[in-house]
């Protein structure tokens, strides 16, 4: 446990060091644009997994949290002209509150009913934004980026770095939850909510913690969107693609651990980015479809589960084969 913690911190340090090296040496902005998108999906998938993977409550309306994060940031920027950091914090607080609302809904609704309620919420908020002229309504709004803050040479690099920090933060939070009493409680809820309740697990409190954190992280992931695009518009911000990706990535990577969504997001996010600028056609949609079907059929526990299965000693004729392989390695 303690050892793992050390490894995790070292991993974070390495990632940060790599990011600094990248920003110092690479001038090709595309690298940062593309990596930003992948990192954004790491945050989104990790956030989804806190509720969906640990507690088993499937949020289908992730796009609403994501988009509302973006719109909250836009309002702060347009109204008070505050910097990106403040925008993100406000956006996260706002979508965290929304998460609280979702958590209260989960008092009454479970399973697919909960998922459908989240879809309904997404559609209602999209309608509200579409009808709100201050944020551009259906027409959308062009945003002029301010100058980047001091240490950064370009705004794109700054966005990349901010998203990287958020990704590391999200993963750290997910990892903390997973290993703490919260994670144990959430898993108990996922396995059998009634039973958990009976043995004294504070289910409501736990669910609210999970929905608030998950919602806040999703909003944070969406908050830099208006600055990233210099534009925001409801149809693409509330796009179903975000909801599907948020759920597909953890499933592909494995929902049981914090590492699963990261693997899924990096894999699927990178594949999508690569396909967009290589084959670039309807195959884009196809790849998501095929990967989803392939992984849920072949690797039910995601890539993590697959790796675990391959590494685990085989039960039956193991003695001999294991002896041989170990002999060989020696």
């Amino acid at each position: 446990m303690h050892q793992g913690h050390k490894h995790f911190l070292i991993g974070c340090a390495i990632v940060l060091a790599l990011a600094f090296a990248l920003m110092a040496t690479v001038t090709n902005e595309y690298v940062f644009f593309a990596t930003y998108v992948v990192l954004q999906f790491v945050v989104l998938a990790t956030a989804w997994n806190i509720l969906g993977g640990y507690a088993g409550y499937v949020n289908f309306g992730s796009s609403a949290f994501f988009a509302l994060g973006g719109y909250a940031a836009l309002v702060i920027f347009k109204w008070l002209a505050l910097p990106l950091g403040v925008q993100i914090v406000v956006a996260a607080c706002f979508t965290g509150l929304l998460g609280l609302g979702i958590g209260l809904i989960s008092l009454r609704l479970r399973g697919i009913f909960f998922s459908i309620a989240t879809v309904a919420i997404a559609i209602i908020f999209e309608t509200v934004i579409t009808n709100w002229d201050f944020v551009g309504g259906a027409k959308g709004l062009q945003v002029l980026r301010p100058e980047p803050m001091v240490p950064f040479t370009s705004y794109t690099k700054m966005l990349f770095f901010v998203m990287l920090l958020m990704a590391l933060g999200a993963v750290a939070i997910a990892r903390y939850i997973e290993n703490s009493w919260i994670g144990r409680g959430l898993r108990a809820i996922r396995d059998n909510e009634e039973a958990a309740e009976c043995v004294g697990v504070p289910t409501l409190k736990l669910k609210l913690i999970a929905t608030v954190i998950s919602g806040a992280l999703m909003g944070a992931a969406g908050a830099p969107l208006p600055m990233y695009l210099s534009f925001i518009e409801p149809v693409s911000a509330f796009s179903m693609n975000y909801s599907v990706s948020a759920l597909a990535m953890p499933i592909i990577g494995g929902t049981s651990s914090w590492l699963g969504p990261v693997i899924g997001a990096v894999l699927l996010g990178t594949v999508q980015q690569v396909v967009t600028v290589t084959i670039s056609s309807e195959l884009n949609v196809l790849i998501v479809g095929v990967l989803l079907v392939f992984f849920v059929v072949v690797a039910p526990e995601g890539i993590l589960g697959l790796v675990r299965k391959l590494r685990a000693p085989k039960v039956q004729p193991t003695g001999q084969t294991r002896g041989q392989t170990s002999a060989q390695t020696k």
Partner: protein
Amino acid sequence: MRHAQMASSRGSVSIARRTLVAAAWAVATAVTVAFSAGVAAQGAPIKIGHSMAQTGPLGGGGKAALLGLQIWRDDVNARGGILGRKVELITYDDQSNPATTPGIYTKLLDVDKVDLLIAPYATNPTAPIMPLVKQRGLLLMGNFSFEVNENIQHDMWFNNAPWNDAVSWSQGFVEMGKKRGAKTIAFLAADGEFSQNLATGARNLSKHQGLTTVYDQKYPPNTADFSAMIRALKAAKPDIVFVASYPGESAGIVRAVNEIGVGEQVKIFGGGMVGLQFAPLMEGLGSQLNGIVNYNAYVPEKSMEYPGIKDFLTRYAVRAKAEKVDPLGYYLPPFNYAIGQILEAAITATKSLDQKVLAKYIRENEHKTIVGPISYGRTGEWKIGRVIMTQFTGIKDKDIEQFRQPGKQVILYPENLKTGELKFPFEKSRK
């Protein structure tokens, strides 16, 4: 896999075409000309990068537009390229999604190192790349977007679309109604970027003209049926009905109007309905289109027979059939071809690929294209808007070929292109 095969077969077809064209050229003129062109074209290609919606709601238009550009590329290369260099198009699918275009365009610039950029089809995918091109001081040819440069004020932006401001859209429509004694107007507009801009322009114009608004409805995308709305609209008894709709709903509106009617007093109906320019919907709706007055970019009327357009459309039709895209291709493809022509003229005249030099040339000169002469105003839009208002006349059911003849979409506005008179009132003009 399947796509790779398709792409390669498509490639070989166009290579075959190219050699054929080259051979014909050689016979027609002199062998030496073809030879020298071939030699000159051996330098590194001029790379032109862009994204184009090939999936999503803009995909239908985007695929047709792309074919227009590809035909231009093949024509240029058959002539030996520009300044002796072949032209290479680098195209990515933006999935109709503005969230993809900043990434795609930085890739085009930083990785593919393209020489020139063309904007994606439509406003939303274009909006996010405007700050990028302004910041880097790049020339960008616009592709049917609307007021996207309004806030950015980039002086190297040139939108190739026949409109400039919101008023240029609806002017002809409102004026025609006013001239026929209309006093009241009704609006039906989709809740989308394009249609709302359109409707706003029309609203201002009608207020200016002293028309009273008796019905003003904004409807959400993906509305399943319009019967209730058309009935409410009919109850308001307007003299003019201005509709700004997207392809998905245009057909539903036309149908509901046929079935329920809009009232005898309506003089003119239509205005800004997107989709009625696309062959699949035109074919599907057939005679239900009669009488509708709608905006257009190009129709095959005598007054619009610009040099080269007929030849282009004939060749387009052949390739469109093979590639399963809009078989008529009047809306976007000729304008995309014209984008190519403008770039070609600029490069040839200035003998340069310098963005500033090219932009200066495009700004200061008139360009002869297959969609007529084009010159640019201060904001990078056409100096004089040329949104034509056309009326569907004598349309039969289930016949795509009829739209290739003149007289089916009569031009009512502007005056200098007019090929017929408005038939009104609306209900009577349909019989």
